[in-house]
């Protein structure tokens, strides 16, 4: 149970830290330090087990579907990294207590730090590939949050984003690599993967896997060409730099290379890719580090260089080099984090990190100075310090490598050159900062920091010395344990001694040291006084390239999006029509089209003539709709009438009824709308442009092809019999079980009543939408005024053309006679509606038609008498009708539950009523009442909401006339409430 605790502790600690009060600096850092310390102790306590068993693990089912368990696995390598992560984490937490300002809201900082620690521990202890990627990405995220901790600073935002882009992207690539690796190995389990190295290297996917994994590793470990993000990450608070960007997170990449070394290393491709990238990074980092002006920048580039060194070692495909890589990883973590912390102190106490301003500090801060000098010496590879040992191992590997002659000569040269550069930048830190002229231009007077702030550095520097002086004693066992899994269990012979005799590596060291001193002397003055903004002789600036790439992608995406994404309606609809046509055509083409063999119905002159008219009117409507809306509306009505007659002709009386009433309402509806559509003027210039013509031709072609397709399909189906149809059932059961002879009505209120329930819901919802939208209606400017007809008739001296808005007006004028007749029609129409409603179950009719008839009868009253007159006498509450209708319909349906039947099951009661006899009372009748009510309410709500706009406009005009302000009208119209409001109480 201790094993998972290694992960659990930091994450739990993170949550607790996040909940601490904003300025609890000591509490937060203390807490974080204790958590890290506890984790360290845990890790240390696990050492005997790891040492003895090679690997220990804890397993928990995670994604059983994919055979992936959550495995916390600690072998030597993982243990070593865990120790680094937890141990340095502890020191950094301690250090940060003093580094961070008391005003800083540090709980957030420590929460992120602990979470990062957990994620990093997750990476190193991952027992399967997926888990590794999982935590890998989490480290990227927390790195992003930590770099952006001081987000009010521009460099922090930019640095954080860049780091996330590179490392997060790399992580995604790594995910694919790991998935493929899992495929090649046959399992995601690390044990299995490591055991099947040979099979993996033989696998066809190996090059792809290698490339993907390396992209992941290189981005994380800032290897060329992905190195550029790391210097930018220095915008993070220094404890973060010390921890994430030197000691731990950037090591994840090399950790991965070590982790997978047994599985992936040992091929030409590995050697070229890993070694090449390592060598390039080694040199490039060192070169750039020499010219940095920012102390943290220098350390960042040196980190890049050292990571390159480790990568190069791992790329050499030799077990001994791999051991050296592990060793250098440990060494680098100690001296580099101590250097970062020292840099933090210098920054903290002097107020600057500018190397041109930092000099002669030794007098002011001797202890810090001494520590920094020792750490720098370790970095430069000075004997008796840990850096020296691993550097010597590297030089030896470089020199004794057995490879292509060019490489055999180039590698020692590169190593020596990099060593030289390392000496130069180490001198810039050790000598340049602490010696030379006394400091003059510093923001603060320099002095030693608080005693405790130095403690972490002292511990780390002590480690450097201890390892450097007595390597075998201090680190020998540990190194062996850590390196054994990397080289696949069999350690090569090596000797952790200070003195190996006077040999080539020593010579290379000496050359590098001397060369370094010489270069520093010649360059040092210039660097010390002015510095260089950019390292010379570098053709490519990675950061710039990154930004340019990103901007380029942005531009390209926008250009592309403008081409492939439209916000216009016409292309959208065209796409849909074209796709549908093409899809149907292709589908039919699969089997070819065969007309059916159903007996054709003999054609008659009448139908042909009627449909000539119908089709012509449709074309005419299409032709007229742009400039002659009224005429188009009339022709549309003709088409509707033809559809209606067709329904009658082909045995669909119910459809005919429905179509007819809907036609009537639609005409009124469109006319109500037409009131608010100002007239279009004929013939704009664009009508004749070639582009317009082309577009019209294209649309015409699309329309004709789609129409032809529709014809074809309908003909193909019309001529087919329906052998599979379930319809005979309905004909058979409508009367005995549905209780009605009109099968259509029985379908609507019984067989498919669930459809009808949805249908009336649609109607109600549409009506409510119309009403809601019209409440905020703002008419077009040209249409606000009274219609031209009414304005003209206002001028006539004696006229019958009066608006029926007053009580008396409804009975005078041109409406006087029609009003009488229309009012007479109201009861008659209601009677007809009742008739249609009651007989619907057995003969054509039903709730829907009845509802529309009543609605039309009411609309007619509005038409002859005006809205005000009607509403002064009658409170219609259409929304309430909808509500009641829906409730009645649902209640009828739910009534079946009482009897234990499914929703909407019908039952016909046959009560015996005195004098009247037995009458049939189907429950479907009540359902139809609901339909009736919803239909009436919805239709009235839509039409009246539209009609009321006229009243609003007229009132607004009256108001505007009163105010004598022409501007007021529009706003007044918009502000007026709608009198027909359903919410009127």
């Amino acid at each position, binding site marked *: 149970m201790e094993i998972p605790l290694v992960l659990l502790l930091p994450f739990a600690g993170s949550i607790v830290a996040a909940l601490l009060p904003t300025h609890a600096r000591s509490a937060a850092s203390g807490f974080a330090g204790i958590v890290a310390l506890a984790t360290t102790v845990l890790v240390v306590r696990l050492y005997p087990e790891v040492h003895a068993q090679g690997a220990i693990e804890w397993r928990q089912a995670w994604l059983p579907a994919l055979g992936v368990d959550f495995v916390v696995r600690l072998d030597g390598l993982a243990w070593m990294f865990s120790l680094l992560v937890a141990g340095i984490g502890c020191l950094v937490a301690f250090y940060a207590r003093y580094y961070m300002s008391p005003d800083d809201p540090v709980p957030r900082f420590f929460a992120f730090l602990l979470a990062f620690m957990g994620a990093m521990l997750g990476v190193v202890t991952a027992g399967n590939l997926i888990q590794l990627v999982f935590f890998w990405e989490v480290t990227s995220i927390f790195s992003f949050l930590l770099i952006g901790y001081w987000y009010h600073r521009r460099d922090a935002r930019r640095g954080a984003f860049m780091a996330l882009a590179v490392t997060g992207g790399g992580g995604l690539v790594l995910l694919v690599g790991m998935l493929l690796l899992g495929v090649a190995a046959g399992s995601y389990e690390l044990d299995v993967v490591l055991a099947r190295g040979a099979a993996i290297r033989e696998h066809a996917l190996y090059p792809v896997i290698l490339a993907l994994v390396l992209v992941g590793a290189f981005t994380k470990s800032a290897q060329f060409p992905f190195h550029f993000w790391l210097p930018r990450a220095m915008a993070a608070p220094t404890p973060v730099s010390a921890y994430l960007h030197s000691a731990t997170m950037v090591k994840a990449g090399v950790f991965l290379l070590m982790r997978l070394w047994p599985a992936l290393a040992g091929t030409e491709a590995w050697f070229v890719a890993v070694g090449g990238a390592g060598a390039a990074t080694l040199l490039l980092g060192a070169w750039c580090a020499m010219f940095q002006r920012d102390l943290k920048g220098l350390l960042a580039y040196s980190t890049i260089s050292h990571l390159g060194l480790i990568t190069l070692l791992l790329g050499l495909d030799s077990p001994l080099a791999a051991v050296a890589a592990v060793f250098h990883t440990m060494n680098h973590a100690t001296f580099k984090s101590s250097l970062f912390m020292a840099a933090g102190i210098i920054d903290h106490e002097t107020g600057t990190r500018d190397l041109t301003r930092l000099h002669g500090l030794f007098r002011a801060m001797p202890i810090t100075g001494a520590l920094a000098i020792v750490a720098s010496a370790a970095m430069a590879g000075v004997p008796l310090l840990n850096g020296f040992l691993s550097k010597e191992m590297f030089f030896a590997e470089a020199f004794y490598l057995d490879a292509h002659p060019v490489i055999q000569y180039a590698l020692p040269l590169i190593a020596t050159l990099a060593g030289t550069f390392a000496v130069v930048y180490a001198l810039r830190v050790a000598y340049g900062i602490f010696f030379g002229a006394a400091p003059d231009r510093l923001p603060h007077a320099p002095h030693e920091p608080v005693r405790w702030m130095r403690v972490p550095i002292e511990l780390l520097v002590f480690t450097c010395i201890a390892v450097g002086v007595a390597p075998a004693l201090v680190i020998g066992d540990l190194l062996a344990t850590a390196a054994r899994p990397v080289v696949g269990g069999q350690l090569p012979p090596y000797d952790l001694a200070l003195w190996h005799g006077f040999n080539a590596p020593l010579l290379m060291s000496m050359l590098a040291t001397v060369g370094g001193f010489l270069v520093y002397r010649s360059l040092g003055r210039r660097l010390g006084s002015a510095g260089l903004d950019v390292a010379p002789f570098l053709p490519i600036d990675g950061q710039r390239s990154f930004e340019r790439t990103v901007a380029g992608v942005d531009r390209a995406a926008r250009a592309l999006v403008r081409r492939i994404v439209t916000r216009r309606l016409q292309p959208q609809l065209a796409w849909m029509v074209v796709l549908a046509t093409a899809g149907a055509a292709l589908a039919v083409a699969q089997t070819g089209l065969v007309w059916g063999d159903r007996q054709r119905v003999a054609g008659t002159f009448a139908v042909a003539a009627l449909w000539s008219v119908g089709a012509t009117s449709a074309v005419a409507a299409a032709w007229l709709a742009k400039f002659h809306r009224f005429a188009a509306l009339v022709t549309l009505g003709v088409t509707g009438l033809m559809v209606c007659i067709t329904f009658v002709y*082909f045995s669909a009386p119910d459809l005919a009824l429905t179509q007819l009433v809907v036609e009537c309402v639609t005409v009124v509806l469109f006319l109500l709308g037409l009131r608010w559509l100002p007239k279009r003027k004929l013939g704009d210039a664009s009508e004749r442009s070639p582009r317009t013509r082309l577009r019209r031709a294209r649309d015409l072609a699309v329309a004709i092809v789609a129409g032809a397709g529709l014809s074809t399909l309908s003909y193909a189906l019309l001529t087919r019999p329906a052998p599979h149809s379930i319809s005979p059932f309905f*004909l058979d059961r*409508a009367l005995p079980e549905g209780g009605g*002879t009109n099968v*259509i009505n029985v379908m609507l209120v019984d067989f498919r009543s669930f459809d009808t329930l949805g249908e009336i819901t649609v109607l109600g919802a549409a009506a409510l939408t119309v009403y809601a939208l019209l409440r905020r*209606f703002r008419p077009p400017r040209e249409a606000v005024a009274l219609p031209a007809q009414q304005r003209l008739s206002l001028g006539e001296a004696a006229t019958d053309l009066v608006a029926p808005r007053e009580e008396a007006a409804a009975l005078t004028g041109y409406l006087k006679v029609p009003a009488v007749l229309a009012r007479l029609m109201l009861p008659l129409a209601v009677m007809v509606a009742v008739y249609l409603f009651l007989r619907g179950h057995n003969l054509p009719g039903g709730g829907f038609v009845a509802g529309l008839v009543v609605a039309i009868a009411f609309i007619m009253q509005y038409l002859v008498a005006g809205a005000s007159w009607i509403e002064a006498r009658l409170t219609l509450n259409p929304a309430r009708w909808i509500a009641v209708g829906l409730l009645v319909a649902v209640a009828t349906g739910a009534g079946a539950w009482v009897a234990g039947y499914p929703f909407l099951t019908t039952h016909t009661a046959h009560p015996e009523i005195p004098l009247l006899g037995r009458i049939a009372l189907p429950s479907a009748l009540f359902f139809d009442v609901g339909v009736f009510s919803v239909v009436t309410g919805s239709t009235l709500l839509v039409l009246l909401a539209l009609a009321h706009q006229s009243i609003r406009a007229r009132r607004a005009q009256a108001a505007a006339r009163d105010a004598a302000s022409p501007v007021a009208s529009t706003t007044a119209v918009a502000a007026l409430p709608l009198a027909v409001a359903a919410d009127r109480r």
Partner: protein
Amino acid sequence: MEIVLSAAIGILGASGIWLVLRARTFQVLMGLSLVSYAVNLFLFSMGSLSIGQEPIVTPGIPADLAHYTDPMVQALVLTAIVIGFATTALFLVVLLALRGLADNDHVDGKDEGA
């Protein structure tokens, strides 16, 4: 007769589609109405054409598709007509609202020629 009806469906559909692809909102409205006629007739035509065989059961006539037209398609068309009516009304009002807000009747709310 089948030819006449399918030709009619095609012409109605083509006119509707042409209008739906136009730039003026009222044209689109008319187009949608025509398309919905075409679709309703298409749906209706799935039941095949029958004359004098309305789906109202009469005692003594066998309850099969040789003696009655298919009631299913009629029920479906009925529902489709109602839904079409509701959505047409809705589209009309949205069209009006846009006309008021955009001060032109282009479907994209911006007058940039035809």
